């Protein structure tokens, strides 16, 4: 138990250093020339990786997961509201788990 505070302090400092490295400066750090074309793909790559990982780590049943994702895609394109997309996906998932289509 005595190690908790030093470990916490070091973890906090290390994490804050990573956060401050680019965002803590008054002027944004310009990306190197060769990276300029690449930076536009960083957000979509990050979100793509997170979505795939979250679905991979998520619940085990594949059919409800796929149905929920399809419902979310349809709702997002038709309604365009994040909250409704999420709630609709959850509802379809719940229905697919409790009333299996297959």
């Amino acid at each position: 138990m005595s190690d908790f505070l030093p470990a916490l302090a070091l973890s906090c400092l290390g994490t804050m250093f990573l956060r401050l490295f680019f965002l803590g400066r008054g002027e944004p750090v310009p990306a190197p020339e060769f990276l300029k074309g690449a930076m536009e793909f960083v957000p979509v790559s990050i979100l793509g990786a997170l979505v795939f990982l979250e679905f991979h780590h998520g619940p085990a049943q594949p059919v409800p997961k796929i149905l929920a994702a399809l419902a979310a895609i349809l709702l997002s394109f038709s309604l365009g509201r994040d909250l409704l997309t999420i709630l609709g996906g959850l509802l379809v998932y719940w229905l697919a788990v409790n009333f299996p289509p297959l």
Partner: protein
Amino acid sequence: MEEGVASKEASFVAGLARGSPILMGLLPFGLIYGAAARDAGLSFSQTALMSVLVFAGSAQLVFVNLWNEGVNSLALALTVVLVNLRLLVYGSSIGPFLERNQGLFWRLARSYLLTDESYAASLSAFASPAFKYRPAFFYLGAGFPTWLGWQASGAAGYLSGSFLPESVPLEMAAPLVFLALLLSMLKSGRTALTPRLCSLFTAGISAVLLNSLPYNLGLLLSILLGVLAGVASSRAKRRRGV
């Protein structure tokens, strides 16, 4: 103020509205973190202090597990930093969108609020050509619900464990939150769709394939691969003159 650009307050409120749905994806993790911290023998104040100081979900879960196993402080902190390395990528990506010359307090605040959720919520909004808010204040607004939700759900998880009935499909909330944000970004992006889809699927598939690498390195590598795929696809598209 620049003409047509919303005020600081309106930008903050718009950010709050953007960041609030993310709470649904965050709550299960907060509950799990709180319960895991209690099981590992941390006190309530230690659990809450870590949520305030570190404020990074996966890193906090790793901390709790390693601390429970008796790993020494230095190795534990290094592991936390490795798990959080992606914050460097997030910072370099979102930094150019935020206002320059902000004071020290605001620079500290925006750095502190950098998480998967605040990054995803803000970047997907910044990508829209119709975005009319002040990015730094929008970003702070988008990050605040995440902060509040994380602190509250961690405390709730510690105090009462997982009190929600199993029929509530919270385990599916996080995937759907990120999917909603991704779709929102894809719909409103300024660049061609094909290279972005190339980037998305390369990053996504490699993230799953490299998932077993330690310290979240698989995520970093998959982001790199996704970016390379996007660049290659974009260049090929230009060469073909499409």
